[in-house]
């Protein structure tokens, strides 16, 4: 059997377009079996085809779309498979988590708050500390806040000593000291000698997204009699240099939570602002957001998240992400 490269390429192309007939399929199989040189060409053709799969489906112009844009349902299922993996990794990584010991409830994610500032999100509820199924940024924030509230905010808690602080008469749990680092990866803190280094991103290889959400502060709004009407938050962000020369999406968010029952939290209002960092280690970008504090707010949470999407997300663990000079101001006493 004499086979030309053209004929072989045609068969491979037809196979990849699912237009190959059964007889042609048998022929292709026979060629591959008989000629090792065609095996190599076949593998290269396949690799080229598969690499396109990882390219961006669309130019990522739409900030108001969901974080994870699935081309079709199959990838959503694929995401679910890997989600189990990554959620497990996250739970292991996160020393404070108590996976499996609490009631789980799937939360409704609200990605719409990603864009722009200051519009409310739909209420989301959580019971216990463990979240299964959805891992939207809001869910992660609420979940973590719930954990902190249980562990640190009661002023008599043993663990609270190092994390509990007071601001404007409000008891506040902050993990900034836990994330604190001096200059590293060529990045100097903005003013004093300390800055915050965010934890490693969680990577979803199938949807090619990576994200880390840090719940930086939780304020116990019931700890003061003062009637605050709104709150402003400002932070500066930076990322370590990457050869891929791409930006990282940072989101500063505020979440007003209510606790109608002892073991549940409801998000009554949230606001966020997104900024894309540049790839220059020497500059810090400023991001701010504000929120009106609704009546019945028991806790106010300040969170910072960093996200990457596309091929660079797969290497996100090689990069470091920083925040500095977080300033939260309560207004309207």
């Amino acid at each position, binding site marked *: 059997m004499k086979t030309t490269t053209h004929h072989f390429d045609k068969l491979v192309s037809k196979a990849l377009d*699912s237009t190959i007939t059964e007889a042609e399929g048998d022929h292709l199989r026979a060629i591959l079996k008989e000629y090792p040189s065609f095996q190599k060409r076949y593998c290269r053709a*396949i690799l*080229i*085809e598969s690499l396109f*799969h990882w390219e961006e489906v669309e130019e990522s112009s739409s900030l108001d779309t969901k974080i994870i844009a699935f081309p079709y349902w199959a990838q959503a299922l694929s995401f679910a498979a890997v989600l*189990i*993996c990554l959620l497990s990794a996250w739970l292991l990584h996160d020393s404070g988590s108590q996976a499996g010991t609490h009631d789980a409830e799937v939360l409704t994610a609200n990605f719409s708050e990603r864009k722009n500032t200051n519009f409310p999100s739909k209420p989301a509820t959580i019971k216990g500390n463990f979240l299964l199924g959805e891992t939207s940024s809001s869910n992660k924030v609420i979940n973590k806040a719930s954990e902190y509230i249980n562990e640190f905010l009661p002023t008599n808690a043993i663990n609270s000593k190092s994390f509990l602080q007071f601001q404007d008469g409000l008891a506040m749990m902050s993990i900034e000291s836990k994330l604190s680092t001096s200059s590293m990866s060529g990045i100097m803190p903005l003013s004093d000698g300390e800055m915050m280094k965010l934890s*490693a991103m969680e990577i979803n290889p*199938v949807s090619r997204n990576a994200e880390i959400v840090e719940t930086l502060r939780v304020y116990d709004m019931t700890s003061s009699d003062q009637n605050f009407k709104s709150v402003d938050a400002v932070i500066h962000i930076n990322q370590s240099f990457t050869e891929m020369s791409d930006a990282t999406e940072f989101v500063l968010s505020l979440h007003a939570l209510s606790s109608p029952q002892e073991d549940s939290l409801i998000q009554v209002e949230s606001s966020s602002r997104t900024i894309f960092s540049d790839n220059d280690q020497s500059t810090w970008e400023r991001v701010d957001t504000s929120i009106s504090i609704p009546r019945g707010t028991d806790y106010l949470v300040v969170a910072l998240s960093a996200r990457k999407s596309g091929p660079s997300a797969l290497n996100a663990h090689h990069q470091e992400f920083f925040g500095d000079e977080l300033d939260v101001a309560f207004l309207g006493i």
Partner: protein
Amino acid sequence: MNSVSIEYSQLLTSIQKSLYAFILSLLPNRSEAEDVLQETNLILCQKAGEYDQNGHFQGWAFKIARYQVMKHMTKRKRSKICFSTDIVEDVAAEEFDSKRVAVMQKALSICYELLPKKMRFIAKLRFKKEKSIKDISKEVNRPMGAISSTLYRIRQKLLDCVSEKLVLVESEADFKNS
């Protein structure tokens, strides 16, 4: 729920491209290969505890993927073509090595830009937007047969170009590493 370490999830992340290429080499149909990829990822997560850390992760993952392809083929008989694993497996293990994939991707991006404009447009519709030949035919107002032929020529051009540029990109990478 199974526990998966950060290291394990990073390993899994690093071989996604290779794994998908391997599955596609056995089952040359994108959507079916994606189905099998997700099934394989799930199994790999479930079997995390069984992975021997001294072993070759990619080889182990390929073995599981191969089994999943076979299982998929038994379950669904709609695939027109599927290759028995012994035909391409040895070559695939070498060609789909993660480092090689990275080099290949660089070469491909160069070659893609070198395609004539019209071809690049068709390539974008088919490969990046994952449109069917029928849809492309409607969009560019050309018969389906012509689209098939164009796609064959695009693949051939890319294949030849990538093989040529691969040497260049590899030597550049070696130079940077030295």
